């Protein structure tokens, strides 16, 4: 196929284009043509398709996520809000903390080890791009039935992948979840969170301003991996994925799986932190889903001018890649920085010191367009905002499912009570031997929780805690929680319960909950019932945050978690971040653990609509600890 230049696109308006295979809808394709006043080139089509995918554009969820910005509680801790790579909160003493949770569900089902590993890599780069040193990771996980054969493939691979990547980066793993439920059989949830710390003045934003400033791509070489991963893998169900083309109209199917190189990422972290320390960058963005398409368009769109990129200067791992593929490649361990010309040499020196490849691939212009060239010929000429921020927005229809009433009516009171001591015994045994109750040490023993020497609390504590200042003993705590069964019963209250649980878990350590991030895992937005769950859960979460005074600083939405017509339980996972002035005052439950547990139950949701009763056998683990009642009481007045 010959090069599809802008000139060529203007001259051949009727050439047929694989917009459908790229996951675009007919009206979306029409809109691109309208924006450009001509048909898009192949490269432009590639960019729009990945950036307008559900994963990158949040086109189905946006209208609901808006509430997180509208119902903001009074909280002066928020330094950077939703919209950036990750939110930033003030934790005092001149420190700021950034944190976020992201999903890597679909890739982890296909290739558990690499899917999970690159999930960790991606969230860590997000945090790094804010200017922060990553200091800890967490991993809320959900799998199918513990005894299902496929769980034996998925679980060990995911755990090894998270450990393999996180351990090699030197980030302590301070918490997470392991939940088993048959609803996740074909759609395991692999969420990964990261916390980063910086001084206020070190906050960096993803924007390209200052004409003449250089655009530097640094980190790994670009390869053919993960192409189409964004548009196809992360946004459609697997049935759709299997018959979709590779996304470029080319015959050869590139693998949608990315392989992570944690060693490269560790170098990238140290190199980037040194670059920050010398204040060499004007703007910075990590390359995640949608690769260079995303980084260039977002940087340019958030900046003041335009951008010009010479795509053929991008260092490649595979010389046969087409420009479209380079733009879509999701090769891991790459970053893109905007650097003033006088700092370029020093920037390169630091990269050389850390054995990191760095290349000037373009510059900021005083125009308003994102222009990309391939060996001198122009292949992209677009207003960057239309790619990055003005994607389609859907008001998808939603409706409360018919079965909701029946489900709620069928409460625990209807379950047969044990009639004999034998039955009681069997029930207690069933309860305590549930995989959801089991010790998580098979998982957590594979994670380094000591590295960096600042871990104050980690497993089996309810929240992790790290010290962030050795002199003053300032620390931060984090807990992640979610309960798909509650959320299915009542998504509004279920989301609030997840919030309240994580809030309590943080409060119980002695830290003050400050702000939250979330990872919203749901089925297909094209199903009105699922969309209703999503709408309710976001509404519940926003209301809950308003009441608790903890703003949502950012998060992630993962849709299409379903196999055929069957969606997973709606699973909003909430991460609460807390701050503690002196980690010496932290509380641990270990020392106060009495001999017998399983005697107390979690608080019931306040809403009368949802009365799950005592937590069922598969969801009780946290409730086993007496400290829970204390923690629950301490904030129940507010939740």
């Amino acid at each position, binding site marked *: 196929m010959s090069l599809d230049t802008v000139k060529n696109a203007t001259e051949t308006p009727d050439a047929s284009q694989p917009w459908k295979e790229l996951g675009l809808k007919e009206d979306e394709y029409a809109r691109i043509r309208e924006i450009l006043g001509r048909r898009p080139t192949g490269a432009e089509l590639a960019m729009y398709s990945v950036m307008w995918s559900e994963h990158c554009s949040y086109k189905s969820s946006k209208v609901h996520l808006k509430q997180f910005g509208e119902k903001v509680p009074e909280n002066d801790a928020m330094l950077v809000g939703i919209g950036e790579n990750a939110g930033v909160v003030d934790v005092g003493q001149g420190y700021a903390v950034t944190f976020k949770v992201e999903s890597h569900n679909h890739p982890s089902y296909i290739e558990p080890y690499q899917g999970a590993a690159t999930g960790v890599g991606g969230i860590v780069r997000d945090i790094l791009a804010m200017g922060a040193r990553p200091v800890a990771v967490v991993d809320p996980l959900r799998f199918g039935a513990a005894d299902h054969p496929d769980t034996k493939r998925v679980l060990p691979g995911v755990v090894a992948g998270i450990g393999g990547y996180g351990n090699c980066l030197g980030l302590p793993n301070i918490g997470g979840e392991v939940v088993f439920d048959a609803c996740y059989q074909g759609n395991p949830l692999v969420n990964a969170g990261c916390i980063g710390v910086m001084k206020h003045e070190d906050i960096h934003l993803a924007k390209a301003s200052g004409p003449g400033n250089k655009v530097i791509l640094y980190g790994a070489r670009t390869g053919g991996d993960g192409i189409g991963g964004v548009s196809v893998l992360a946004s459609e169900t697997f049935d759709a994925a299997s018959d979709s083309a590779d996304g470029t109209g080319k015959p050869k199917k590139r693998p949608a*799986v*990315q*392989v992570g190189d944690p060693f490269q990422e560790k170098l990238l972290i140290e190199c980037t932190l040194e670059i920050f320390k010398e204040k060499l960058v004007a703007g910075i963005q990590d390359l995640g889903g949608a690769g260079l398409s995303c980084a260039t368009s977002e940087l340019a769109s958030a900046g003041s001018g335009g951008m010009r990129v010479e795509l053929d200067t991008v260092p490649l*791992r595979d010389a046969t890649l087409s420009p479209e593929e380079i733009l879509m490649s999701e090769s891991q361990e790459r970053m893109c920085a905007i650097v003033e010309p006088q700092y370029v040499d020093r920037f390169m020196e630091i990269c050389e010191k850390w054995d990191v490849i760095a290349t000037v691939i373009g510059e900021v212009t005083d125009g308003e367009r994102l222009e990309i060239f391939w060996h001198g010929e122009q292949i992209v000429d677009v207003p960057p905002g239309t790619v990055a921020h003005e994607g389609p927005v859907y008001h998808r229809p939603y409706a409360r499912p018919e079965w909701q009433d029946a489900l709620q009516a069928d409460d625990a009171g209807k379950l047969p009570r044990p009639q004999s001591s034998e039955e009681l015994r069997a029930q207690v045994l069933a309860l305590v031997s549930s995989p959801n109750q089991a010790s998580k040490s098979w998982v957590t023993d594979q994670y380094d929780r000591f590295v960096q020497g600042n871990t104050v609390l980690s497993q089996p504590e309810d929240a992790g805690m790290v010290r962030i200042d050795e002199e003053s003993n300032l620390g931060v705590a984090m807990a992640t929680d979610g309960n798909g069964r509650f959320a299915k019963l009542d998504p509004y209250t279920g989301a609030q319960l997840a919030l309240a649980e994580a809030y309590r878990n943080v409060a119980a350590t002695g830290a003050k909950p400050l702000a939250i991030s979330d990872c919203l895992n749901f089925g297909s937005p094209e199903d009105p019932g699922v969309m209703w769950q999503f709408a309710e859960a976001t509404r519940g979460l926003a209301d809950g945050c308003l009441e608790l005074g903890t703003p949502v600083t950012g998060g992630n939405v993962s849709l299409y978690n379903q196999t055929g017509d069957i969606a997973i339980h709606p699973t909003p996972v909430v991460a609460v971040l807390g701050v503690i002035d002196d980690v010496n005052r932290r509380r641990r439950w270990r020392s106060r653990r009495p001999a017998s547990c399983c005697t107390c139950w979690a608080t019931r949701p306040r809403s009368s609509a949802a009365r799950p009763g005592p937590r069922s056998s598969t969801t009780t683990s946290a409730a086993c600890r007496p400290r829970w009642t204390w923690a629950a009481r301490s904030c129940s007045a507010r939740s």
Partner: protein
Amino acid sequence: MARVVVDVMLKPEILDPQGQAVQRALPRLGFEGIADVRQGKRFELEVEGPVDQAALDRIHKMAETFLANTVIEDFTVKVEA
């Protein structure tokens, strides 16, 4: 007993961080002239009974379903002389 060798290599388009790390180290150690290094796995299987077509078919199947992850890896099966 016959030995059958299954070699498993990452597909050419998949990043091979291990091979790259080795390749980058070579010049520093004074070994020049190696343009690329790929690192894979080698399985040596000691097979009971005759290694006939049926046995090879079974080993092929084993490699495909178990020894290699065909999402990212290719493999070859060879009978060792």
